[in-house]
């Protein structure tokens, strides 16, 4: 997939910030994040809860208005005010799939109505055409047309998630933000959904921003992966590179924290241990936000926030120490 990738950027995020006011303090959910998503690829975005990955995804879709920075979608800045027509075109082209299959479907609407909701906004279908479309979409996600007049509560988690996908597909988007689409599902159902997403991407040339805390699934589906910590992007690299030789100490810790389904491997493996917990995003540490938990922190880490630099081709890292830690050894 990687080599087939079109080098044309679809989404460019530049110095994006999204702050929330919480009483008198300010929560910096997304703090100066920049990255690019190319057409046809999947960018994985990982991090622990509260790292700002969901906020980032929603700000890109203009569901939240950005505090500062730019989001260029096909070269057009969507954080500026847009005309009603431009906005509608953007909403048709960029869609979202949610994490919680229970709260993301309206309990008072039938499945058919849920899927058709977007069509009513963007297309002028006759009722018959609409029905036909709904049937096609249900078949696409592996359900029969009987489901169209059922209610969401009659479905299992995996089926609901597929309805969420069908709803997004109904408006024929090019770009989909998958916001933890599998976290709430069972293992075997997770595989169903991931396979469906991969298959749809191959068929329709979709571009995904795949947000998850599950690194192994992200690796599985993504061409490139970005790692977020406390609102900042700490590392972006092709997924092979990031798993083979992560450069940021946080990425290393994250990778080594995943339990692997292999008892022998688990018995012998040495974990990079992270002490303590994620600090509050309301009052993040100065300089590098990770320094309070970083085993390699030095003086400069407390003083300056490290910039995201290209350590290797296409492999970006925001760390003061990466060269000391790995630079000599490999080059």
């Amino acid at each position, binding site marked *: 997939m990687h080599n087939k990738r079109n080098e044309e950027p679809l989404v460019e995020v530049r110095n994006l910030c999204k702050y929330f006011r919480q009483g008198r303090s300010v929560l910096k959910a997304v703090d100066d994040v920049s990255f690019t998503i190319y057409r046809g690829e999947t960018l994985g975005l990982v991090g622990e809860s509260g790292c700002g990955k969901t906020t980032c995804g*929603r700000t890109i*879709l203009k*569901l939240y208005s950005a505090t500062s920075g730019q989001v260029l979608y096909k070269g057009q800045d969507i954080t500026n005010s847009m005309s009603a027509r431009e*906005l*509608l075109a953007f*909403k*048709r082209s*960029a*869609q*979202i799939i*949610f*994490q*919680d299959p229970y*709260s*993301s*479907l*309206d*309990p*008072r*609407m039938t499945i058919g109505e*849920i899927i058709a*909701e*977007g069509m*009513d*906004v*963007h297309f002028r279908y006759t009722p018959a055409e609409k029905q036909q479309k709904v049937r096609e979409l249900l*078949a696409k996600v*592996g*359900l*029969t047309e*009987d*489901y169209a007049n*059922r*209610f969401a*509560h*009659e479905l299992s988690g995996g*089926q609901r998630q597929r309805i*969420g996908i069908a*709803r997004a597909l109904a*408006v024929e988007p090019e770009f989909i933000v998958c916001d933890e689409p599998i976290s709430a599902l069972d293992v075997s159902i997770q595989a169903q959904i991931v396979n469906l997403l991969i298959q749809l991407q191959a068929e329709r040339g979709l571009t995904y921003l795949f947000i998850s805390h599950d690194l192994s699934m992200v690796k599985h589906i993504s061409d490139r992966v970005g790692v977020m910590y406390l609102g900042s992007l700490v590392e972006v690299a092709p997924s092979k590179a990031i798993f083979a030789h992560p450069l940021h100490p946080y990425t290393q810790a994250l990778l080594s924290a995943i339990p692997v389904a292999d008892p022998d491997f688990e018995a012998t493996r040495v974990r990079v241990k992270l002490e303590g917990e994620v600090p509050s995003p309301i009052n993040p540490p100065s300089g590098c936000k990770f320094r309070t938990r970083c085993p390699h922190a030095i003086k400069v880490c407390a003083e300056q926030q490290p910039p995201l630099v290209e350590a290797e081709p296409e492999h970006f890292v925001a760390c003061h120490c990466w060269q000391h830690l790995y630079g000599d050894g490999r080059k």
Partner: protein
Amino acid sequence: MQEEISKELFQIIGPEDNEAEKIARPRVSYLRDAWRRFRQNKVATLALIILGILAFMVIFGPAISGYSFEEMDTTNRNAPPSREHWFGTDKLGRDLFARVWQGGRVSMIIGLVGAFVSSFVGCIYGGISGYFGGRVDDIMMRIVEVLISVPYLIVVILLSVVLKSKSLGTLLLAMTITGWCGIARIVRGQVLQVKSQEYVLAAQALGVKPWKIILRHVIPNVLSVVIVAITFDIPGYIFGEAFLSFLGLGIQPPNTSWGALAATAQSMYAFYPYQLFIPALMIALTMLCFTLLGDGLRDALDPRQRK
């Protein structure tokens, strides 16, 4: 045992063709499910039946008795319940059976119309406040808090003085003028909750217009809570009317209501206890039934109870 199984049964046939999944359970629609849960609640069902009977009597009761509620029979004052006058007569010799149901009309109308009007206003107010949020919400809710802190007795007295009327309309106006505040608060809370649901976000992402989101997602999901709130509000209005009539601020003779009936009867209740007992029982029964009905509806309509 193992030997009995023939060899040909051990042929791999693979999984069932369930490419497209089937649904095993029967379809249960929302309302049917709610109705089923409601009927399981015996007390609430009984309350509904009693309310049905009361409603029937309030509509047809005056006609059944064969007397008009205004018709005086001076030869037959303060008669005890008898075959002619089932509930007896009052001090002017009016048939109490007819008067009780006539009074019930007024009480029920006030209860239903009052609750309906205040919910209507409350829904719109609370809906706007909740949906737009932010500063709009702040200002609108402060207004509600001010209104809620004004004792409604003062409002009623002031209004009847200013409007120089003690009609049904004035009474309703006086009671609803601050009565919607409670519902407005409930609706606002609900709207805030629904608004944060991901299906509203999904609709926003699809580019659905705000008013359509309110119409299609917010209102239907808030409705059940509103219905329950209305049911709980009705006894409040019935009692409010009875209370005001008892004080002489309500319905004026010859028209009557349960509260007014009780008020006239209480001066002589030592001699004619039935004259007080019957309207008081009606007030108590109606209020209790609406409260129990509301309880049952709340449990039945709560989506969290679904399984």
